[in-house]
């Protein structure tokens, strides 16, 4: 039983890592007041870019870097439309997802069916001594570097958001941009920055899928992960600390899907699990938001301009 649990947890963490990257990024974007529904599009573009660069250069880190840049650039499209042009954020984000999914198909057609060679993969690092510990070893000390980076990002991003001046600026811009503006905070700059961070992390999350988790390019391989990220952001109550919980929960469900399949349950019906769970989780999170009266940044989704109050 213990062995089973360890094995399940071990599998859940990598499965949840793309979601963790994406959610951390979206938390920053939404904290600054920008709802970016383009996560799915940025993630899948990160996946195709990361894979193609890792394949051609043989260096997985260059792949991750390229994915981060592409994710960031795509997010700037959304930033321009929603911040500068004050367009509808729901529709703009949705459009970005469509655009990213379409473009990834076009860019990735050459790579379908090509596996990533061994040297271009990111493999688990074995931390000496610690990785040989029973139970704890496989559970904590044998993952690939990106898993550790994503885990490290959680306290760092929490600290920045709650304990630094930049964090106060981000939160104030998301809650009350007019007041923040009057206090001398650069509303547009902060919003651009946070949207960009969201794009970068979504890109990295996508690269994790195509370089580490399933080292290959499969059309539409994000399969809704970007949308689960949007839900996880609400589930996390816009806090990086709770993001990790949600990400690994969904990672666990993905593992459960594989585990239940041999029992003769239709894989198609099992595939609905994460999406049904998303709805349930969202219901629970929304209840909590209402009960504790904490919740979405007040200015989330609203464009800001100086002339109108």
């Amino acid at each position, binding site marked *: 039983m213990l062995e089973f649990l360890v094995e399940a947890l071990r599998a859940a963490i990598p499965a949840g890592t793309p979601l963790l990257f994406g959610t951390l990024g979206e938390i920053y974007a939404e904290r600054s007041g920008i709802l970016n529904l383009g996560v799915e599009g940025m993630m899948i573009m990160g996946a195709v870019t990361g894979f193609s660069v890792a394949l051609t250069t043989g260096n997985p880190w260059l792949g991750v870097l390229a994915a981060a840049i592409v994710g960031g650039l795509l997010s700037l499209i959304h930033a321009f439309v929603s911040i500068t042009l004050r367009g509808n954020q729901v*529709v703009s984000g949705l*459009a970005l*997802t469509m655009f990213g999914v379409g*473009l990834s*198909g076009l860019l990735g057609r050459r790579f379908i069916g090509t596996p990533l060679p061994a040297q271009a993969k990111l493999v688990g690092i074995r931390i000496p001594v610690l990785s040989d510990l029973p139970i704890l070893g496989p559970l904590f000390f044998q993952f690939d570097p990106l898993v550790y980076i994503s885990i490290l990002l959680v306290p760092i991003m929490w600290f920045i958001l709650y304990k630094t001046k930049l964090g106060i600026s981000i939160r104030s811009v998301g809650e009350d941009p007019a007041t923040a503006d009057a206090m001398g905070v650069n509303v547009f700059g902060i919003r651009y920055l946070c949207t960009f961070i969201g794009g970068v992390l979504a890109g990295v999350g996508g690269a994790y899928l195509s370089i580490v988790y399933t080292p290959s390019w499969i*059309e539409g391989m994000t399969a809704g992960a970007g949308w689960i990220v949007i839900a996880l952001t609400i589930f996390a109550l816009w806090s990086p600390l709770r993001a990790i919980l949600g990400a690994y929960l969904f990672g666990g469900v993905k593992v459960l899907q594989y585990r239940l399949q041999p029992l003769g349950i239709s894989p198609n019906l099992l595939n609905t699990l994460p*999406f049904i769970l998303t*709805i349930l989780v*969202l219901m629970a999170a*929304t209840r909590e938001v209402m009960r504790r009266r904490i919740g979405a940044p007040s200015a989330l989704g609203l464009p800001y301009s100086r002339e109108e109050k």
Partner: protein
Amino acid sequence: MQIRLERRLLAPGWVRILTSAISLLLALLSIAVAFYIFGLDPLFAYKKIFIGSFGSLYGLSESLVKAIPLLLCGVGLAIAFKAQFWNIGAEGQLLMGALAATWVALFCPIELPSWAMLPVMFIAGFLAGAIWALIPALLRAKLRVNEVITTLMLVYVATEIVNYLVYGPWKGAREWGFPYSDRFPDSAIIPVISGTRIHYPTLILGLVVAVLAYFLLMRTKWGYEIRVTGDNPRAAEYAGIPYLRIALLVMLISGGLAGVAGVGEVAGIHGRLRYPQGISPGYGFTAIIVAWLAQLNPLVVILTSFLFGGLLVGGDALQVSMNLPVPTIQMFNGAILLFLVGGEILLRYRIVIRKGSQT
């Protein structure tokens, strides 16, 4: 000289049309640039799209065929978006409609007389799409659960249910192992204009619905309440317009119409239930743009759905001749929508150019 933006309340009609047209042109131009960068000849690509869609009688009829589901879904979405209810899940509602129609055609335990078959299928499709849409409406109105995510998640769920059925219990015995159901009986097939695939009863239904939807929105109390809820939710609350009623109403209509579109696809085009992408190449998503380009006016949706029907047909032609992957057309959709949203600043603001130095 000084350029600034001034807020305006209502843009005149010519500005609205001009804005949409310019946005559309800019989107096509930017895609042309993208094609060029990827080493594809943009002129050739657009020629292919245009000739494939509007360049022949066959292309025109196919464009009309694809306009039918876009019209039905687009009219519904226009109503939902008018109330600022973000139904992103028309694709799933369409699939549920297709599923319900298949159940009536193949598995209904009651022997239906043949004259009743199609009407019952349409009603079942409407109800199934509506039920699929009412779940997010209830969750939103009762628990304030974000409808963008719930409607979209239900697309994935509907897709997997249809997959499960066509690969599993509903897989046809006479379909050589394809993920199709058996063919519908003749009484469950919607008639077409001979020589084409235009299943005209569904088309007529769509046109009637568009006109009715326009009158609902512009001439009735319910329509007024939908518009107030969308324009200013707080004012709607003070005016005593219950959000629950509006959410249920717009989702009943938009989900139901998407369901009807699904009936049209399985009973008018394929004559059987197929795997989800075989039923709809994303009509429910493309309909979002159709509605948006029409600036949520159901009558204009008639025009924009035909335009995008053409784009889909042309896109298919392009895909085949240039060997592009299926999702490429999504790129067009995304770019067009981005430009439309971005261009809307011209509807809400007036560009004022003042000569001379700043006052």
